[in-house]
């Protein structure tokens, strides 16, 4: 059963010509169909564990949303700085991008987890600095470097004639960026940004390695506690499905946004 399932899961990579969403639907539906002969009892146990899994998924959603938010904000700024004509602005920004783009995400998560203190002292006030926030920062740093490169590429892809036209109308560099260039970048930035979001969402499972109880960790707990092979298969299938249900609407939403910004 387990081999059969891993075969099905591999299918999307061996047949890249089909749209990935269709393949995913197929894989998930097939797998659930294959599991239909499972004992009702196993499914009932899964149902019991559902609140536990949901709590785990909430953590993944929280970490990924916060990481992409911080990463996008920071990345947009760093990306614009990378293109600055002042060397003492551009060089550090480019250095930042190189460092965080070329470091394994897991290493960064370990780094932020063990380097940052477990609490921050503000005068007499102690603020807790929980592991999940450290893991979020570990994901946000490489995300910001990737976002910076996405923005830099998009800005450079806008023809220099747009800069000339804006300059001739009396726009300064930052005004041109704000009113002319960045609005045209939105459409170009969306698809790679979406990929990044998906990557970050999947990377949130790495947080389990530094002791954050997210979906994968919850599933592992359940699997170890119940200790039945068929349940293990079932619960990891549930994890897969939950991740899909989280990512798929984001993809749809991005497609809508792309259409909205598809000016003529």
């Amino acid at each position, binding site marked *: 059963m387990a081999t059969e399932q891993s075969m099905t899961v591999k299918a999307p990579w061996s047949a890249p010509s089909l749209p990935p969403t269709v393949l995913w639907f197929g894989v998930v539906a097939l797998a659930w169909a294959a599991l239909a002969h499972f004992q009702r009892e196993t499914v009932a146990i899964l149902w019991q564990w559902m609140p536990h899994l949901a709590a785990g998924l909430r953590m993944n959603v929280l970490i990924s949303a916060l990481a992409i938010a911080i990463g996008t904000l920071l990345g947009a700024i760093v990306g614009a700085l990378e293109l600055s004509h002042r060397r003492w602005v551009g060089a550090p920004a480019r250095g930042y991008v190189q460092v965080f783009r070329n470091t394994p995400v897991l290493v960064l998560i370990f780094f932020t987890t063990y380097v940052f203190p477990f609490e921050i002292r503000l005068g007499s006030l102690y603020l807790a600095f929980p592991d999940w926030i450290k893991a979020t920062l570990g994901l946000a740093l490489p995300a910001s470097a990737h976002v910076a490169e996405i923005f830099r590429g998009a800005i450079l892809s806008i023809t220099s*004639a747009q800069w*000339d036209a804006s300059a001739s*109308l*009396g*726009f300064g560099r930052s005004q041109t960026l704000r009113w002319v260039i960045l609005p045209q970048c939105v459409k170009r930035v969306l698809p790679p940004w979406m990929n990044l979001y998906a990557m970050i969402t999947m990377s949130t499972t790495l947080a389990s390695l530094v002791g954050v109880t997210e979906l994968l960790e919850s599933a592992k707990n359940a699997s170890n506690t119940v200790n039945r092979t068929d349940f293990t298969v079932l619960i990891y299938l549930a994890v897969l499905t939950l991740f899909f249900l989280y990512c798929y609407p984001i993809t749809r939403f991005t497609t809508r946004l792309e259409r909205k910004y598809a000016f*003529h």
Partner: protein
Amino acid sequence: MPPAHQPPERPPLVELRQVHLSFGSNHVLKGIDLNVRKGDAVSIIGPSGSGKSTILRCINGLLTPERGEVVVGDTPVHALRTEAERIALRKRIGFVFQQYNLFPHLTVLENIVLAPVRILGVARETAEREARELLAKVRLADKIDAYPGQLSGGQQQRVAIARALAMHPELVLFDEVTSALDPETVGEVLSVIRQLVEDGMTCLLVTHEMRFAEEVSHEIVFTDGGEIVERGTPRDIFHAPRSPRTHAFINGLRN
């Protein structure tokens, strides 16, 4: 438009003195002298690569000459060092490009009001009212909510002219504005420019439309190889050129 009854004592609005500029080893401008008086239309003609567009870009500060002086009104353009000084200059000079360079993400109306509202601080209602008047003037009132990509080349170029005029410039520079157009849309753009010249707008045109240049210009300047070979009235340049190079260029076009 015979220039004879234009009083010659009107002060120059644009003055170039011995302007030199190189791109790497390519010496593009080799000592350009040029005067444009207020209210005049001056056309620069000449073979491709003779530095015509480069002259226009030196006037609004998109390029800075290596040597020589560029003066617009009482502003020494060659001496401007900061972005703020160049912005102050460019607010006074309209520039129309060969490839229109409209903002593709904005409607026609937004293209025209963006700079007046964001740069000059004009109230939005005022800017929109003026934009409507300008669009009527270039005969595109019905395209106000269209995006540039939905317009023909000639229509886009007329929007670009309206966009430049919305800044109330003292001077408009036209950089081969009909070269990228289909032949059937060239006329509609030229008639807008003709109207502008008749209204007394100071215009400096780089153009390959010889018949049009002859018809609307007060003065023609012929450039070749980064130098001004000859300048004079349209009648002189087109019908009695003194330089053999001008003669060869004009005749080459006719044949």
